[in-house]
């Protein structure tokens, strides 16, 4: 017993010593830029994160090979080869914090791009500020990140607009399509994404049409597979429209089950992450429903050489049209590249993080969807972008692709709050200062 414990102390100490020596400490190579890329690679989030990883991998390789069209035709980032380090975002915020610190200190990444879950973003942002590492929260959508959590961001940036944009544009689009609408029900996932989406959508709807009714606001657990009871509940007192921010497997399952039971004929579906369903279900998608893509991605993309190249290259590599996760990852890298090269101003080599961030503030950069992004809000750390909604009209069997009609693009200043205004206040004020 005694001897065992004595050994205990010795072995614990030895373990500590070993670990400090294990951690990689390579000579910092000046010709490459190491980027930590954190996406959901397992669990339900993989339905989304694996596309982001595919997109990021494709962009990183293409940039290194200098195969991307203008304005990103320069090799790598400012001539530096991109060395991606992929990490799985699954496992919770505690694990992500450990992974983040490991990326920064052991892998010695120059920057981190990633994080889809708002819980992870909230947990990591303060640490990013503390460790002074450029961290691009590429796609979490909670306005609170820069409104409440890190109110004066220096090292955290977000190259994607907040979810507010999706809800506001959805409300506007729905009213344009159905001016006489009287009621909207909602079904969303029971965690902050779903809860916030429904709250913001209701606020936006009420701001636009105060007498609207909300007969049902259902919430289901992430990963629910059977929606029979919810569909029955929605069928028994159908609203004119049904709003949902479902994504991934939940969205697909719900769409399949709702359409076979005729819910789609009673209520007009408004799906803020709907193009994901088109990507997965193809021709089985609900005809006549309103779709969004967390931005003007995929079916809403403009035809620019960069956008066309991205779509074609993705199709060639992964045999499918790029889902919006891939667009979000691509714009994350493009944003950093644009800022980096602006800051370098023609000089080769590595730059200080602070210089890159300074260049990113207020920058407008081109994206794979053809709609530029402007780092307009929260002191230039928060992106705004135009967004679009459309209606799925059926499947083009000849071309084997979805037909999306009635596409309406909302300019960035129309659906995003002005700089310095909290999203929720802006919606309640009736979108004061919006430029539509």
């Amino acid at each position: 017993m005694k001897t065992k414990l004595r050994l205990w102390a010795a072995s614990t100490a030895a373990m500590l010593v070993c670990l400090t020596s294990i951690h990689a400490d390579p000579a910092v190579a000046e010709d490459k830029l190491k980027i930590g890329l954190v996406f959901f690679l397992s669990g339900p989030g993989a339905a989304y994160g694996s596309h982001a990883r595919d997109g990021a991998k494709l962009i990183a390789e293409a940039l290194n090979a200098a195969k991307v069209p203008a304005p990103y035709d320069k090799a790598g980032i400012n001539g530096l080869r991109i060395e991606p380090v992929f990490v799985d975002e699954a496992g919770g915020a505690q694990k992500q914090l450990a992974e983040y610190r490991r990326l920064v200190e052991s892998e010695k990444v120059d920057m981190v791009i990633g994080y889809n879950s708002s819980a992870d973003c909230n947990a990591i942002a303060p640490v990013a500020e503390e460790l002074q590492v450029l961290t691009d929260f590429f796609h979490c959508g909670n306005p609170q990140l820069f409104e409440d959590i890190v109110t004066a961001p220096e090292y955290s940036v977000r190259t994607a607009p907040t979810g507010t944009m999706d809800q506001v544009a959805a409300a506007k689009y729905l009213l344009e399509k159905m001016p006489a609408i009287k009621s909207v029900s909602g079904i969303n996932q029971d965690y902050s994404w779903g809860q916030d989406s429904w709250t913001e959508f209701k606020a936006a709807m009420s701001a636009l049409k105060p007498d609207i009714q909300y007969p049902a606001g259902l919430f289901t657990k992430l990963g629910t597979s059977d929606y029979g009871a919810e569909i029955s509940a929605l069928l028994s007192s159908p609203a004119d429209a049904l709003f949902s921010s479902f994504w991934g497997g939940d969205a697909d399952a719900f769409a399949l089950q709702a359409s076979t039971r005729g819910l789609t004929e009673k209520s007009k579906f408004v799906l803020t992450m709907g193009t994901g369903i088109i990507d997965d279900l193809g021709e089985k998608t609900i005809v006549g429903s309103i779709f969004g893509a967390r931005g003007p991605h995929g079916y809403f993309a403009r035809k620019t050489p960069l956008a066309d190249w991205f779509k074609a290259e993705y199709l060639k590599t992964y045999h499918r049209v790029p889902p919006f996760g891939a667009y979000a990852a691509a714009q994350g890298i493009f944003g950093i590249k644009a800022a980096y090269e602006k800051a370098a101003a023609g000089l080769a080599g590595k730059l200080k993080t602070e210089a890159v961030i300074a260049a990113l503030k207020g920058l407008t950069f081109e994206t794979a969807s053809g709609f530029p992004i402007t780092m307009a809000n929260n002191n230039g750390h928060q992106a705004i972008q135009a967004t679009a909604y459309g209606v799925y009209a059926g499947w083009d069997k000849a071309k084997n692709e979805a037909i999306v009609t009635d596409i309406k693009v909302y300019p960035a200043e129309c659906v995003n709050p002005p700089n310095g205004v909290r999203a929720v206040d802006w919606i309640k004020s009736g979108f004061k200062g919006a430029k539509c």
Partner: protein
Amino acid sequence: MGTLSAIIVDAASFSAWLFLVAVGLTLIFGVLRLLNIAHGAFYSVGAYAAIYAIGASVALGWGTALQLAAALGAASVIGALIGLLVERCVLLRLYGHPEPLVLIATYALFLVLDDLTKMISGGRSLYAAQPRDNLGQIAIGGLQYPTYDIALIGVSLMVAAAAWYTLNRTRLGRCVTAVVFDSEISAAMGIHVGRIKTGTFIVGSVLGCIAGALTAPKIAVSPGIGVEVIVIAFAVVVVGGLGSIPGALLGAAIVGLARAVTAHLMPEVEVFAVYFAMVAVLAVRPHGLLAPVAARRI
């Protein structure tokens, strides 16, 4: 009135699904005294197997019956193979070890198997709704329900009846019951306890895979579907009484009803209705509703 009939049908349909998911778990617990967390992974393996089998049979131009047969066949074969492998290579070495250790072993298996399905499918969500679509709709109480979902109620009742009959009315079933009662005496009486255990585990795994296969046409099969399933199956089995087939049926009915009622009437509390039902039942009946309580003796 409409709501009431909707609640009943929804509860029945959801309960049927719950029972299918839970029956294998409770069977394995009954005989092996082992709470198999890997059951959730069996479910998702079965679902993926069904997706590929249905996809292939649709491509071959087979009819609905054959599509379903292919799905069930594929799920059963894979379930039996995995079950055999797991029992022989892992569990066999752990019989007699403390319960928690075996629990953790099945959790490890869950992680591995769940990840393997992701590797094979590439993490995309897949669907194969053809058999469900082909069977059409029925109207009950003014609402449309897919015939497939309603048929599943019958299927799960049949599974329950078959399980009950096998355990109570056949020689094999009596051997299994004997092993449950006292495996040492059973061994002394010439029953192959090892074989009964292996057999039960395989049957349980097959049932898990079949549950996945039967669910596959209703959902988009995507990574992580097993995690939710295992917790909810635990709830069902514990409420009904661990190791009892009628208990699983009753547990499924209660949990199904709790969910349907809350979804219709109190959607805010739907997420924790299941766990609340579990706490409430256990607080009143510590061994679940239908579990036989073993007497303690000095």
